């Protein structure tokens, strides 16, 4: 039962990772009792499970995922939402309005219009049907302020970090509120735009360097340095 790569090594599609009594995890597949990589990424072993953390991938909806999307079309009884996936998501009017929906009375574009950003949860999705969204839970709904960053969807867990260490570092250092859409879209709301820029910078750095080690420490260090610079600039402009 050999494995052919060490943990955290880079693999490309078609690379033979392990043979024998292993379980094929994400971004791998089995053929003839051998496990191969199906995407470019980093190898990881957990117990007997072999996974590849993809460096290049797109978002595939899953039920219960929180996503951030853009309204692309206002229909007769709902909206179509672009959630950065191969499939268009649907948001039904009856889900947004707390009362029964009457097509002749309600003007849907008054509630949400094309171009509006929403935080939503996926409530239904399978191979045969497009994903369906809901906004009927606390924390979900239309976005009114903040900034959006887009990163590779598979790197969201890296932004969260081990037990949330990375995200809490960024939140602490910048004082921003951050909502992570699992589709790779991130909403940052801070008191000032400088703070938001800082959080954005950190997140983009994570996206670029996600496959390196010791990243949390480097991000914390970078944030501290940048904050110092910002304060110096402020003091200079005052004097």
């Amino acid at each position, binding site marked *: 039962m050999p494995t052919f790569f060490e943990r955290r090594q880079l693999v490309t*599609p078609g690379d033979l990772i392990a043979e024998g009594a292993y379980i094929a995890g994400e971004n791998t597949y089995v053929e003839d009792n051998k496990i191969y990589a*199906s995407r470019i990424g980093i190898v990881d072993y957990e117990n007997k499970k072999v996974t590849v953390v993809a460096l290049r991938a*797109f978002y595939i909806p899953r039920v219960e995922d929180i996503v951030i999307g853009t309204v692309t079309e206002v229909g007769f009884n709902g909206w179509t939402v672009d959630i950065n996936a191969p499939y268009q998501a649907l948001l039904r009017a009856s889900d947004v309005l707390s009362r029964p929906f009457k097509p002749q009375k309600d003007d849907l574009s008054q509630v949400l219009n094309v171009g509006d950003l929403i935080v939503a949860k996926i409530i239904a999705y399978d191979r045969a049907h497009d994903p369906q969204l809901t906004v009927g839970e606390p924390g979900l709904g239309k976005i009114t302020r903040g900034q959006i960053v887009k990163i590779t969807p598979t790197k969201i867990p890296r932004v969260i970090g081990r037990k949330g260490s990375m995200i809490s570092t960024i939140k602490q250092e910048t004082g921003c509120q951050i909502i992570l859409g699992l589709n790779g879209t991130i909403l940052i709301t801070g008191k000032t735009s400088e703070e938001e820029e800082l959080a954005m910078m950190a997140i983009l750095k994570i996206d*670029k360097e996600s496959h390196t080690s010791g990243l949390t420490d480097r991000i914390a260090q970078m944030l501290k340095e940048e904050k110092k610079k910002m304060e110096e600039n402020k003091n200079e402009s005052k004097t």
Partner: protein
Amino acid sequence: MSQKPEKLIDKKGIRLDGRKPDELRSIKIEVGVLSNADGSAYIEQGKNKILAAVYGPRELHPKHLALSDRMVLRCRYHMAPFSVQERKSPAPSRREIELSKVIRESLEPAIFLEYYPRTGIDVFVEVLQADGSTRCASITAASLALADAGIPMKDLVVACSAGKVDGTIVLDLMDTEDKMGEADLPVALMPNFNAVTLLQMDGKLTLEEFENALNLAIEGCKKIYAMQKEALKAKYVSVKEEADE
């Protein structure tokens, strides 16, 4: 068109561009060169210059082409008007339509098409400069662009040609050898499975010559595969080295 040189291979067995019969042209591959496409790759193989771009998986338009059980792969091979000596009309020619199909069929076995039904992937191959065996270089670049787009693949696809020139079996034909030679044999391969996904032949070969040429082409494919892998990893390796310092 230039006149036929008297000999394509000299007495010492050296070809017109100074290569040995079993030698590849110099190859340069770059991945992720376009920011607007989901995945892209650029290859220079000898004088060939080819750009490949991938979009998707995305909603397929027109919608009636979508299949309910798998993705649809669409390919477009196109030669720029300035890619050859005589200006080529930019409209798709019979040859380009055929090559589009051939490239699509050589890539299809490598992609897990059943993963994301009702969607489509578009592959665009643009030949900027042509110098023989462009279909092979196109396949090599297109499969890298697919991997760069994050599309789940069974293996990378790599292609290389072999043929017969002046009675000798040679690897990686260039334009003059292709036109003046006796036979041309493009081969596409999934190297980890030794699975051939494209095999064409034009010209005449004996059975023995064919086997030799096929083996030579497969050897060539494996050499290119190593470069392909390196090119795909290059971007991430450099970032990692920077971070480790």
